[in-house]
């Protein structure tokens, strides 16, 4: 009686192999059909943050938020002190070094990522450039909270997420004057989209 029980116990652990989860619910990430993500051999991606106010910490926060999403080492980033060897250069008018406002998100800043041009071999010719700007009429804490979210959003573009999400709950939501970015970190849909991007064969190559 005991031996069959032992055999049954051993067999039980051999059954029901897990099925990979379905990653449904993503948004577009390509630029007119072109796909880019940082290849494994170029990791960690080197970010340079202009030494102005809280900007280096904001950029590090953005890098950590994206790197922490991935399960399988698809993306890692690091902050470098020299812009000459950087893959992504981040600049800002100012970045108040104050605790971010915990209240409702407001459109207190803006951001833009310049995707570089490509050469004949579909390789980017220079680093990505991110520019953060503050808008007038807001407290430093409101600006700080906005820059925190916007830095993650713009870093997402530099990762290769070239489109905006149509869902305001996502960090890659395309902000408008009426609805700023409200997510404090990448959402599940942002994560799934970034995962699919980093497992899609790219058509564009990183800068030399």
């Amino acid at each position: 009686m005991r031996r069959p029980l032992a055999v049954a116990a051993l067999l039980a652990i051999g059954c029901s192999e897990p099925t990979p989860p379905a990653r449904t619910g993503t948004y577009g990430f390509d630029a007119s059909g072109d796909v880019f993500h940082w290849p494994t051999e170029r990791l960690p991606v080197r970010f340079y943050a202009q030494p102005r106010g809280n900007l280096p910490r904001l950029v590090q926060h953005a890098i950590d938020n994206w790197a922490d999403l991935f399960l399988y080492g698809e993306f890692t980033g690091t902050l470098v002190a020299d812009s000459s060897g950087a893959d992504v250069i981040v600049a800002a008018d100012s970045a108040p070094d104050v605790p971010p406002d915990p209240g409702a998100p407001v459109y207190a800043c803006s951001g833009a990522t310049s995707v570089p041009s490509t050469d004949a071999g579909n390789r980017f010719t220079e680093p990505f450039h991110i520019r953060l700007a503050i808008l007038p009429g807001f407290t430093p804490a409101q600006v700080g909270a906005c820059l925190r979210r916007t830095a993650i959003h713009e870093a997402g573009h530099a990762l290769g997420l070239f489109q905006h999400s149509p869902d305001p709950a996502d960090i890659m939501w395309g902000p408008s004057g009426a609805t700023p970015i409200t997510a404090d970190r990448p959402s599940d849909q942002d994560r799934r989209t970034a995962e699919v991007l980093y497992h899609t064969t790219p058509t564009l190559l990183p800068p030399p």
Partner: protein
Amino acid sequence: MSVSGRHWVDGWTVSTVVTLLLSAQPPTRLSAQVSVQPSIGLRYTSTLVHDSIVAPFDVRPALAPAIALTVTAPLEQRWSAQASLDFATSTLERHDAAGATTGLGRVSTIALTVGVRRQLPTGLAAGANIGGLKYLPAQEAGIFRTGTGGVLAVGGVTLSYTPASAIAGRWRLGVEAHYDVHRFITPALRTEGFTSGRVVHRVALMLQAGRKVP
């Protein structure tokens, strides 16, 4: 949200441990003569995670150096009881379908098992053991970003060979093949959508030295 590792230990582990211990039917009288067997070898571990994002890929540790220390106490006739502490360390790797391999950092395992062993003819011995296994990642990142999930139940069998002539001083030398199995899942994998652990097989080939402790 419950921690998966604790769930395993509290539920499946306890019932399996009890079942296997009962089925082993070891003799009950302990002897005072105890022996220790340090061993060193290599361990192969099967896939920890099989996932598919656009294309399928596997995550598993590279071939790992392993060391173990086993303490054996003879029971009646050819039976003995044994406890073993086992450590292995290697690089976790992602193997893509296209053939690319990406290192994901160092991961080690430590396992504490107890079991029984029976002496067979011509220097052979076979054993069975059960216990707990813990993953020790170098960094809390990736599949271990929110922890390892606790102690996982592990069960295994061993087959060892100790030639009568392989003696070096007070040590008896031998080789041991070790197979064990456990289920692997982490909190991060659960968050990702995996609902159950994957069965992981490990095979080790060890060189062993044993001596009696007075």
